[in-house]
């Protein structure tokens, strides 16, 4: 993603950017909404990596979380509900030189967008993908999401949701070509930042599930975890995300080699602990933008080629 592209190569850029340079409109999320923390962490990563705003594109779907691009002064595409990934695929496929970030909600990604989600993992294009998972539909005011806990009451299922929640991590661990799968939480900012950083440096499709508080519609879902860091287990490894210095708050550290798929699957199974960290990483998979790389031609060259092609149809 830091590759020098055909188009911008050689351009000297003396500018330096500070966090504020990446900020656009004032975010309109509710006070206490976990999305704020994610935005801050992203801005920090942009600053750290000194990404040029014009070379950076944030693509999103529809939902509270999908307002994300509006609050950044980069290029952005606030698309359709569930369809962020096809848009991002198009951007990256035609412009591999751009830094592409995708932001989706849990409904956006795993309900209406589920098909694209699976297939984007297959394409394995280099982009950072954030699913802001408040385990509920926020923007439409509290309906059940695939990740809503069993029994949690919403407006469409007031007697509690009928199905156990879909586990996004385990689904992805079953997908061919999955290459970077991590989980973090909005209330652990250092971990959040490091996870996005690691995703940015991953050479492929880097998916992060961010556990995200929605004080308005799913306040109690993460309450215990936020209050009791003991309920959290951090996956750490020299190859993974190593944020051990969380003010000594998070004491449950679990060494996990992110290349170990079997263990990753086991760790992803529901347990009494919330596990944050890098579940799986594999940089060996080819990236679609590279397997599909084509040599570009000038119009004149193309005309010459097409004339040869037309000869095949000549009368």
């Amino acid at each position, binding site marked *: 993603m830091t590759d020098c592209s055909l188009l911008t190569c050689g351009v000297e850029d003396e500018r330096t950017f500070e966090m504020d340079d990446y900020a656009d409109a004032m975010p309109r999320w509710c006070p206490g909404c976990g999305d704020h923390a994610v935005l801050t962490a992203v801005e920090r990563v942009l600053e750290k990596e000194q990404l040029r705003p014009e070379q950076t594109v944030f693509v999103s779907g529809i939902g509270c979380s999908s307002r994300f*691009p509006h609050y950044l002064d980069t290029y952005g595409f606030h698309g359709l509900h569930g369809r962020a990934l096809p848009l991002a695929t198009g951007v990256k496929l035609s412009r591999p030189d751009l830094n592409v970030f995708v932001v989706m909600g849990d409904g956006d990604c795993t309900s209406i967008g589920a098909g694209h989600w699976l297939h984007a993992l297959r394409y394995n294009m280099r982009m950072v993908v954030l699913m802001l998972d408040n385990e509920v539909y926020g923007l439409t005011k509290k309906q059940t999401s695939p990740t809503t806990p069993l029994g949690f009451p919403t407006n469409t299922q007031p007697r509690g949701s009928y199905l156990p929640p879909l586990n996004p991590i385990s689904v992805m661990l079953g997908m061919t070509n999955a290459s970077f799968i991590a989980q973090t939480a909005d209330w652990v900012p250092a971990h959040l930042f490091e996870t996005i950083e690691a995703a940015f440096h991953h050479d492929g499709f880097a998916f992060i599930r961010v556990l995200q508080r929605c004080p308005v519609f799913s306040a109690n879902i993460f309450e215990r975890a936020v209050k009791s860091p003991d309920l959290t287990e951090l996956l750490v490894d020299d190859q993974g995300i190593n944020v051990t210095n969380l003010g000594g708050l998070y004491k449950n550290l679990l060494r996990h080699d992110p290349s170990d798929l079997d263990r990753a699957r086991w760790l992803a199974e529901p347990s009494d602990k919330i596990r944050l960290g890098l579940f799986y990483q594999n940089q060996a998979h080819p990236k679609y933008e590279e397997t599909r790389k084509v040599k570009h031609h000038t119009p004149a060259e*193309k005309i010459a080629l097409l004339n040869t092609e037309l000869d095949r149809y*000549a009368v």
Partner: protein
Amino acid sequence: MSANATTSATKTSRTRAKKPRVIKASQHILEVVSDSGEGAQKCGQSFGLISAKMGNGVWTVEIIPAEIQPPVRTPGSASGVRIRLGEDKITNWGDETNLVIAFNEQVLLSRHRLDALADNATILIESAWETHEDPSVRQAWTTAMEELSTKSYRFINVPMEEQTLTITDNPRRGKNMFALGVLSWIYKRDMDKVRAQITDQFVKKGDEVVKANIDLVELGETWASKNIEFRIDVKPTAPEQEMVVMNGNQATAMGAIASGMELCSMYPITPATSVSHSLGDIFETFGGIVHQAEDEIAAIGVAIGASFAGNVAFTVTSGPGMALKTEFIGLAVMTETPLVIVDVQRGGPSTGLPTKVEQADLLAAIFGQPGDVPHVVMAPSTIEDCFHAVITARRIAETFRCVVMVLTDANLATGVQPFVRPALDTRWHAAPLNLEPVGDNASPYDWNNDTGLSQRFIPGQPGGMFTATGLAHDKNSKVDYSPDNNEKTMAMRSRKIAVLQSTLKPPTVHGEDDGDILVVGWGSTKGAIEEAVDRANETGLRASSLHLTFLSPLEPGLKGIFSRFKKVMTVEINYSDRVGDPYITDESRRRGQLSWLLRASTLADVDCWTRVPGQPLRPGAILDAIVKNIPIGATHD
């Protein structure tokens, strides 16, 4: 046809022919039809290409079985090609077939039952079945001949199997080339061109295969020269200009390349898929990519993403796929992201008639998107048009930052026709990406108040950062729900299309500029309509026709043109209720889609004559409709 007649035909075919009678014809329709899998399609396609290369006018239509694998020797198994051959340019598939070569009597039956064959058609038929060892086959033959005898076809038995077995083991794979030889002799094809075509076609499979096929063709030629007592002479005219010959989907693919597009994002669907097949082979050479997405929604999403990133991309689909793209079309229009969508229309509704022709996506294309979604809809009416339409579409899409839909159909898609080789032009191509910084205070939607046009920013342009959104937004792409902003931006998106309309030329009337009846059409029916009008004129009727390329916005001047005719009637391949049917009144009548559009737009009482046979319309049938609909008391001069 009685068993007697058959026998006599058999006799004829077995005796050495005297010097053949040469029948001159300005045009002739033949078809090759076999069980699916026996290669009649290859045979017919080769015959069409050879004829085009010789300089004949040609229009081919595929005969496709409904089932994946229909049982052999059943009417449902009929597969082949129908070729209309002419001295001059041929613009449509014509009327009834004049000559058939059929590999068995059952597939012939299917053609007979569809009323495809002229009453006096010549039928060359495999003779092996009449005397087959299996009595049920012989019985089937007899029954079929009985049914066929209701028309006065002229039968000529051809011992295809017997003959091919003299040089090959598997007649199922050889008959088609033998048939090509027979037809080549009858139609006086240039045998060097025939051999060249076969070489071209089989060269990848090696010299031996090429030789074996040439041998079969020559066997057919020799057999015909000894056994057939007539030849048909449709004189080729050496074309004045360089010509190419291809089908409409190939033309669409070539047009896309010629327009400089670099991404075709699609999901397979009949009859659109072969556009991507044509590109699949060669697009990468041009720096282009065929992206087969996981579904039609993703396909258009990827195209929009690519276009947002500066690349004009297109997607190609058919009815059910168009349905799925509806939501994204609205987003492209709202974000003013240029996009070309090719809809190769098939028979509907729903899955409908996947391989058959219909023109019933017009209103859905124009009005199908919830909310107010101004965009452009155009329809090529010839195979040549398919090439140029994509180029025009791309230019409009970029100039107007809008969505352009190009509606072709199954008739154009699979029909093959020669046309003037296009003189390629670099100006057709997209300008290379310009990533210069944007001007100070420039906005991503700096609408010109008069025209609604605005400048497009592309990721990579310093200073141009904005977030495209499907929500109502102001000129900086900031979400804005205020009434004034909504009124204004709606107007801006609509205005662009009015500006495009102001640049269009009024369409030209085919025939006299005034008269008793004006037939209005769009899309692939052009050739058939104009031929019908010409024939009507020959019989002294004051008929003319008008063919529209732009359906949204409509071309200007229609009201004026309509006012000069006593009656205006569209001819379309889509459904309309017939006047006089139970419960059908002027109020309740469902009307042809173009007629609906024209009525609303011009308030002229535009009638319609439409059919949904899943087949192209015949000029003869349109002529009948003209005759029946011409106002009573109209002058015959």
